[in-house]
């Protein structure tokens, strides 16, 4: 679960990581009032959970009161990578001499948390990672011991940070580790961490991602979730614990297991089609969950054919069949269904479906994909 910049910064503030003065606004009027309190110039920043919002026009510098209304209106009425902006952060504009990158995340390959520091932060950090990897220093952290001061000093020394800034950096890094550890984060990132013209460190932006699997023990975030921007389909999917990602193709697919779901999408593509979504119903889904999953697929107007691919282990094919039968009355557009059932109770499932008209039964995955692509093409004619 990703946090908005303003949410991340409120955690930074809790741990005394210095941030610019700022507050969140939903309307130009609110923004104006906040800007007056903070003092001009201010920066308006769209609070959306997508990268590259700066280049997409989501960040504007406002020099004085006259410029505020148009700028706030611009951002609040815009969409950034398809997401409409609901809130903006009104923030004190900061003069700085250098942008640093500081982040902590999980290195899967090492199975350890790593802290990353670079003297050159900002939007070009990924370029730097490719072309000058030695200018970015990473240090693995023992998850039982936690980040230790000497590691931060070694990193500060490595990037040649002015010694006056070692203590503030140490404080910020240790606080960042504390947030990472205590909040079950998978990412905490300050980019840029700037050196101001007054020679102080200040977190100009902040990103945090919380481990979804750990939300049960992170009560802070149960509330925050509601503020996240989700499509109705995504909300519905989350309610039923379905793993759903909407895509732009024409073939809706419902599969059990993430790997098989990806393989199904790959096969659709191989057969010349494009998947409309990724949808993993997980293990042991019952008829209700199957019904909910299919309803989400049917609600996608791009869908021209529905491919159901189930290899039952814990999942029982007869439950899938029941869920499918129960949703058919809602198939008002008469979309073709292609079904492949294998594994636990596959026979019972097929028997239940035998009496249903207009269902195409496939023998294996590749065949199912081909039939679905065919059906979708016919449906588009």
């Amino acid at each position, binding site marked *: 679960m990703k946090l908005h910049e303003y949410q991340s910064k409120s955690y930074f503030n809790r741990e005394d990581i210095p941030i610019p003065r700022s507050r969140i606004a939903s309307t130009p009027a609110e923004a104006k009032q906040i800007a007056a309190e903070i003092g001009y110039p201010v920066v308006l920043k769209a609070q959306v959970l997508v990268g590259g919002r700066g280049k997409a026009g989501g960040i504007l510098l406002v020099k004085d009161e006259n410029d505020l209304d148009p700028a706030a209106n611009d951002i609040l009425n815009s969409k950034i990578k398809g997401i409409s902006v609901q809130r903006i952060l009104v923030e004190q504009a900061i003069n700085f001499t250098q942008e640093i990158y500081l982040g902590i995340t999980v290195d899967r390959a090492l199975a350890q948390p790593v802290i990353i520091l670079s003297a050159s932060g900002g939007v070009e950090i990924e370029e730097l990672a490719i072309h000058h*990897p030695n200018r970015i220093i990473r240090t693995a952290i023992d998850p039982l011991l936690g980040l230790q001061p000497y590691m931060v000093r070694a990193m500060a020394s490595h990037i040649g940070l002015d010694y006056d800034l070692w203590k503030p950096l140490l404080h910020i890094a240790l606080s960042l580790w504390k947030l990472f550890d205590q909040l079950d984060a998978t990412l905490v990132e300050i980019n840029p961490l700037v050196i101001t013209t007054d020679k102080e460190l200040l977190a100009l932006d902040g990103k945090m991602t919380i481990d979804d699997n750990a939300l049960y023990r992170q009560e802070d975030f149960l509330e925050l979730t509601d503020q996240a921007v989700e499509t109705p389909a995504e909300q519905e999917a989350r309610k039923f614990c379905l793993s759903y990602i909407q895509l732009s193709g024409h073939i809706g697919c419902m599969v059990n297991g993430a790997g098989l779901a990806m393989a199904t999408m790959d096969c659709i593509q191989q057969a010349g089609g494009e998947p409309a979504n990724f949808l993993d119903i997980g293990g042991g889904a019952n008829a209700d969950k199957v019904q909910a999953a299919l309803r989400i697929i049917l609600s996608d107007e791009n869908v021209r054919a529905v491919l159901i691919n189930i290899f039952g282990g814990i999942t029982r094919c007869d439950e899938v069949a029941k869920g499918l039968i129960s949703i058919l009355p809602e198939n008002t557009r008469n979309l073709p269904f292609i079904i492949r059932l294998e594994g636990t109770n596959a026979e019972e499932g097929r028997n239940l479906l035998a009496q249903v008209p207009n269902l195409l039964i496939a023998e294996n995955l590749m065949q199912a994909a081909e039939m679905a692509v065919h059906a979708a093409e016919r449906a588009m004619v």
Partner: protein
Amino acid sequence: MSILLTDKSKIMVQGITGREGRYHAQHMQDYGHNIVAGTSPGHGGEWVLDGKVPIFDTVEEAKKSTGADTSVVFVPAYHAFDAILESIDAGIQLIVCITEGIPIMDMLKVRRVLAGKECYLVGPNSPGIITPGQAKAGIIPGDIAIPGKVGIVSRSGTLTYEVALALKRVGIGVSTCIGIGGDPVIGTSFVDCLELFEDDPHTDQVIIVGEIGGNEEEKAAEFVVNEMTKPVCAYIAGKSAPENRRMGHAGAIIEGNTGTAQSKIAAFRQAGVKVVSFPEEIVSLITTS
């Protein structure tokens, strides 16, 4: 004849009184007849599986009384960390964790504790292990594979079934089939399993079923080049997946160019590992001797 799991394995089930635990314990018992114990705090002294298998309050007691060497973990995600540590501490040699949804920090700590210990943790979020005709530990359906000489190691549960069943349909058997789990941080890796298969005299060739994310496949390719004599082939799921939504810039810095289906397929091909484009196609690469 197999790796990790044989008909000699003495399996205990952690969380044997839960719905999943009980159901799958029965299936494992029907398959391999080698379930020796279960644990469930407060149920010590009871018996399950037709009154033939004793329940203990703790892994330590179960191990001491029955000699269990393998544990299959079915407890809920918020108890899994404790359950895995309990088995490690008790000296269980093979822990198969079926539980999914374990927080990543818990797994980082488990990996730290495991370092240097003689203990294989398979999973979490693993479908388990099956050595056809001998034993199964986990939820892999018993009828999808027949005994033979092909090793399978996979990050995906259902794709494992897919591949095993495809082999069975053409009469090809499996030595051991291992689902290592699809989570970002897991115990036993592709490389660990390849090492075991390479050393197993009864495995002739190995199938890897990978997917996008992480660099386990890239490391496996490197291992194949440097250490393997047996033929290896692979399928990678996720070619069609939209670009991985990475974790901020940090993810990009850490992963660099690894993690995509393209990089994995390229790494395998460079290592002389043939890669198929859909799961069932893998059958065409298996030579029956």
